[in-house]
């Protein structure tokens, strides 16, 4: 049951990041304009980030789904989601309208920015849940393995 839930949650989170990264990777110029619009970093850092972030999202998303480097990918995605939350909150507080193409398209508007903030916050929350469930599942597995070992030892004493 826990395993099935883990698979579903990883598929949803990983899929969301892969989709978002793919949309940005298709059009790095437009995404760079969005990153520059946040006015949080120097120009060259914003441009570097705008070509790096989409691929990081795609690769970490794939790792999360496949399980290859999965634990590390979860931390990377959590860090990304938290950075997005802080950046969006900062832009909203400064009254800056971001033309973010985080999920494709280039419409803008306050409502869209608020929706983007909510999605990022939701993703961060889902990733924390994922980490918690993974820990729970790993603990259960370890406990089950220990119990099996003990039972086997009792059943066949040397």
């Amino acid at each position, binding site marked *: 049951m826990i395993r099935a839930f883990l698979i579903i949650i990883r598929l949803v989170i990983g899929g969301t990041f892969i989709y978002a990264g793919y949309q940005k990777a298709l059009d*790095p110029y437009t995404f760079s304009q969005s990153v520059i619009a946040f006015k949080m970093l120097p120009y060259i850092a914003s441009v570097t980030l705008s070509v790096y972030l989409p691929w990081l999202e795609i690769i970490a998303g794939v790792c999360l789904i496949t399980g290859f480097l999965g634990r590390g990918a979860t931390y990377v995605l959590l860090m990304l989601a938290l950075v997005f939350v802080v950046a969006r909150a900062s832009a909203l507080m400064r009254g800056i309208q971001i033309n973010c193409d985080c999920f494709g398209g280039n419409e803008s508007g306050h409502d869209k920015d608020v929706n983007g903030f909510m999605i990022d916050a939701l993703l961060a929350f889902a990733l924390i849940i994922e980490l918690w469930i993974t820990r729970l599942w790993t603990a259960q597995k370890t406990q089950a393995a220990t119990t099996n070992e003990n039972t086997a030892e009792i059943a066949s004493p040397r």
Partner: protein
Amino acid sequence: MKKAVIQALIVLLIAIAPAIATGLWHPNRPDWSEPIAGPGQVLLETARDKNNAAWRHTIWIDTRPFEEYRIRTAPDAINLRMDTWDKLIVMVRQARQFSDTKFVVFGEDDNDPNAKSVAERLRKEEPQLDVYTLVRGWKAWEKVIR
């Protein structure tokens, strides 16, 4: 925890390779050198900035040949060239609905002589208009209009 940190570092490293490729070879890669607007010039990002009240009313003037203008241009741009000046200057005057309306002239790129001539003539003959030339011209627009 140590294992997770190492894994995270590997994920961060793997993403560098495609990012470098994107930055170097993607057809729509961002500009690595920061575009700077000189006097009488404006950056596309500034002229389109929805947060900037000074640029709320912008009229685009495309000085490229009509055939190219017809295929693709900036939103609601007027195609004004030296050879169509007399016919179309009325349209430019009529487009000025607000006192703070700004006119941004663009040609093929920064070196397009048509854009420079049209901007100079507009400044000279229509001194009431606030005229700018667009840094990188149509090449700047091309990246945001597809």
